[in-house]
């Protein structure tokens, strides 16, 4: 039953995994590994999932924690995942979709990838429509801090975008 519920929720939010993986990992091969690590960690943590929390919020926390750790190579020693060809999440088409996007989106992705790992998490959550309170809860910050940092990041991205053009 747990497994059914998990798979249903995963199916509804699977795109979130790709977005986070894409932002933290530029190499397609590593990205597949990263998505697999995320699913493994989600499944491992699902027993302690508090149903009062939104699944997507919880999933974001785990996906970003895994992605940042992967980025910083902190979980290298516990990466005991299954061979890739046996894995049930195929992201090849998503890779194609992201490589054939508009110039604006390509520039935005590039600028986001130039931010450090923590600010990158903030901007991803903002772009996904989360409020400052929700971002604060996912990040473990206060809402005032998120608001101030968001203003700065937006200004920085806009300036860099203008410089790029």
């Amino acid at each position, binding site marked *: 039953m747990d*497994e059914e519920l998990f*798979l249903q929720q995963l199916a509804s939010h699977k795109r979130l995994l*790709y977005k986070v993986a894409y932002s933290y990992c530029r190499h397609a091969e590593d990205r597949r590994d990263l998505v697999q690590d995320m699913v493994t960690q989600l499944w491992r943590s699902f027993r302690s999932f508090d149903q009062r929390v939104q699944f997507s919020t919880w999933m974001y*926390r785990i996906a970003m924690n895994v992605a940042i750790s992967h980025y910083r190579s902190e979980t290298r020693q516990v990466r*005991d995942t299954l061979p890739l060809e046996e894995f*049930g999440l195929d992201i090849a088409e998503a890779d194609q979709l992201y490589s054939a996007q*508009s110039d604006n989106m390509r520039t935005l992705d590039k600028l986001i990838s130039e931010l450090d790992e923590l600010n990158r998490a903030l901007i991803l959550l903002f772009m996904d429509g989360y409020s400052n309170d929700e971002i604060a809860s996912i990040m473990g*910050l206060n809402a005032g801090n998120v608001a101030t940092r968001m203003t700065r990041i937006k200004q920085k991205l806009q300036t860099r975008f203008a410089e790029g053009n």
Partner: protein
Amino acid sequence: MNLDLLKAEWDARDQRLEQAVRMNTQMLRLSLLEQHRRDIAKWGWTDKYEIITGIPVIVYLIWFLGKHISEWQFALPALALLAWTIPMPILNHRLRHALQDMDFGQPITVVQKRLAEHKARRLNLFKWAFLLGQVVWFIPFIIVLFKGVFGVDLYLKTENFILPSLMGGILFIPFAIGVSRLLSGKLTHSARFQAFTDALAGKDIIQSRQFITRIAQFEETPGECGNGDKYQDS
């Protein structure tokens, strides 16, 4: 560029992404089952290897101690070996499982801080185990091995063994750190060797501690009490 305006384009890409990420439920179910089976098997192959090799060594050392308890020159090396052989696998096991049992569903700053602290502890353990291994493990091992297995008293037979080995072991510590510092960052073609030299040189430990500081600064609202401003946005 207006980020708020780009959100519409971001959302449209999101909708297309929904179709582009494909999920094979049957295959995923098998993967989860296999992962569950692995998680239940709390004792991984590293733990099993350490138990299989460690138990005979401990049994032998206890037997050796019992036999030579009144001869301090043999009892001390055996005690040093015991003091090494028993806690090391326990520490390794605890560090490995602390990471596996970590709740990744906690807020990002909380988890990342714990991970960085864990990494610093793990690297410190590896660094000092490697550097002190020559003095604390290898020399006592040779003394106990020769006495216990061959009945040879190395203190008498090879007068020049103990002191030079001890000196060599002590000198090895600054030498290994110095060489690692020289090589750290230079041998980029081998990721494993790079990780090894970075760990011995203490570079990885410094990076982990810097990251913990960065997180602490990130948790402070910029401009609120000064420190938050030190944190760079990029």
